[in-house]
């Protein structure tokens, strides 16, 4: 039995990764884990970009402009910068409150 692997397969993988990352953002108690889940969501988006780039019927079939791949590279760079900022925040919070449990970061609570 042959399963044809087309665009929808890649999109499905991307969606699954995204949902796993989304779940991690909601349910993880450690801040670092939340940050990692955000990274996972960003990478899922990268898969989507590349998949669309691969399967788009470009006008000149010989040359693939690799638009999606360039976008994915862009996302990776931005994600790196964002993680740098995020980790700096986490370190500051840890130094202040001695905890990385997200549930403890509730001083905006009523």
């Amino acid at each position, binding site marked *: 039995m042959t399963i044809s692997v*087309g665009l929808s397969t890649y999109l499905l993988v991307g969606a699954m990764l995204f949902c796993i990352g989304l779940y991690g953002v*909601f349910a993880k108690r450690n801040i670092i884990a*939340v940050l990692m889940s955000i990274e996972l969501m960003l990478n899922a988006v990268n898969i989507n970009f590349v998949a669309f780039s691969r399967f788009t019927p470009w006008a000149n079939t010989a040359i693939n402009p690799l638009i999606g791949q360039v976008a994915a590279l862009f996302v990776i760079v931005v994600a790196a910068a964002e993680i740098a900022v995020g980790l700096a925040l986490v370190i500051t919070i840890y130094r202040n409150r001695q905890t990385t449990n997200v549930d403890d970061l509730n001083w905006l609570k009523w």
Partner: protein
Amino acid sequence: MFKEMHNLFQWAWLIPFLPFLSFLIIAFITKRSKGLSSTISILAILTSLGLSIGIGIGVISSGTELVEQPFLSTVNWLTIGGLKIDFGTLVDPMSAMMLFVVTLVASMVQIYSLGYMHGDKGFSRYFCYQSLFAASMLGLVLATNLLELYVFWELVGLCSYLLIGFWYFKVSAREAAKKAFITTRVGDVGLLIGILFLYKQFGTLDFYGPGSLSVQMATNFQDFALIGSASYLTIMALLVFIGPMGKSGQFPFHVWLPDAMEGPTPVSALIHAATMVVAGVYLVARMFFLFDHASPVALEFIAGIGAFTAIFAATIAIAQDDIKKILAYSTLSQLGYMMFALGVGALTASMFHLMTHAFFKALMFLGAGSVIHALHEKQNIWDMGGLYKKMPITTITFGIGVLAISGIPPFAGFFSKDEILAAALQNGHPFIYAVGLFTAFLTAFYMCRLFFVAFLGKEKQENHPHESPKSMTVPLMVLAFFSVVGGWAALPEHNFAYFIHYGAFEPEGMNWGLAAISVLAGLLGIGLAYTIYIKQAIQAEAIVARFPGVYKLLKNKYYIDEIYQWVIDKVMDGFVAKVLYWFDIHIIDGIVNGLALITRGAGSGLRRTSTGQLQTYALVFFFAVVVFYLVLAMGEGQLAALNPLAMLGGVK
């Protein structure tokens, strides 16, 4: 000549305006200076008197023209949507007569007050209020429509309150002022309801003139049944009459007038004898067309209440010992006369009696004030006696007043009282005639009782009376003059009835037979008083001993005040107040507190969304995205074009 008089009528507004100006000046500028205040006040009222005399002459010289077409001069006061209210002056014989009476009595009272209130701390305040009262009463008399009349009606009620409670440091004065204001206010509610309903039905409140109430009722108004079988006009008439019941002291709203004697005696003379209390009679006379077009029940009701008040008050008066209270009940009784005269359809007689009564009642009140002033605030007639020796002018003028009220010719009261009684009999009310005749007998009796006990007889050792100063005796003499000649306005060919009447004018001669009977009743009363108090042939104590229950009942004013107090205590405070208090606490406050509780409850519920935790907020974002997606997916119309599912399935 008439044209000049016509121009004079246009200045009629000055008559209430000058005393009002005097009120403002005294209140804001000259309060500190006693002399200036009284001078300004007296100047203002004397000028108004002069103007009133001028208008009176103009009215008389214009003949019956003004009776059919009253002179109206109005200014638009406010126009809101369909509501148009004017303020203005109405000059016709009735208002001209009232202008003369009010300005004359007010000026005499103010001049008298110079002597009576001399040395009083509130001298300026007194003249301030007197001016305001004069302005209000004159404005009332000149009112062209019901609303303007109601405004001045309330103003005179206010002045009455201020002047009764003039010596505000006395508890009894404060209580009496409140009682007067509240009792008349109860009457005013009926009047206001009547005014509102009349406006709603007719769209106007004017008395006379094109499109006014009187014209509409006479021409194109179709009466209809409102409640049960009572017609609309009848209900309106009864509602409007409730106001005069309060203001003119008809039973059961009479209770405030005897207590109003707490005020200074000139105030009692002006307000509670001659002017304010007759405002009710004047209103009924002005609105007589309403009572005429309503069913006869309305007028019969008025006649019944008036006659009852007359005899009721007269019976109380025979057992009173305070000189001012006797005069107060006498006023109530005479107001009853005026009211039942209107009730039997004798507008002329009622207005005539209003005029003559103003003269002799004010005279007697001022005379009583003279006595009180001379005896240093003694008011019980049994503490007086033999005053004729040291106070001749007061005695003579008071005596003229007594003869006038007893209906002895040729004094003023004879003509007016006789007209009323004749009208009662001739218009088919024999029972009311009998009541009126008996009341005339009682009136003569108790007034002569007062006169004999206080002025004649033996002097008391502890009294040192002296005649009052000129400022007090001259007004007495002026009013005595009018008490003598006032009734002669019925005699000439163009007499009182020629000018002041309702409907068609039918000149009537005097019925000398009926006149003789009423004079006889008066003489009987005088004779009985003479027998008891001068000759002492019958002892007053003996009569009291034979009828102790009756005497007690009369002396305590039929316990009406006690009954009212009981009703207020047990029913109002005990029951109604409790119900209303419960309603206020539980329902009104409940609603307000409930609103606050709902707000707080919603707040405390909704604040749980602010957990301060990042993941909670992230979850909210997610759910928002889901909702947004669903709207786009399931939405119709333009939203369907953005449907991502369609886009998704297209690429493979």
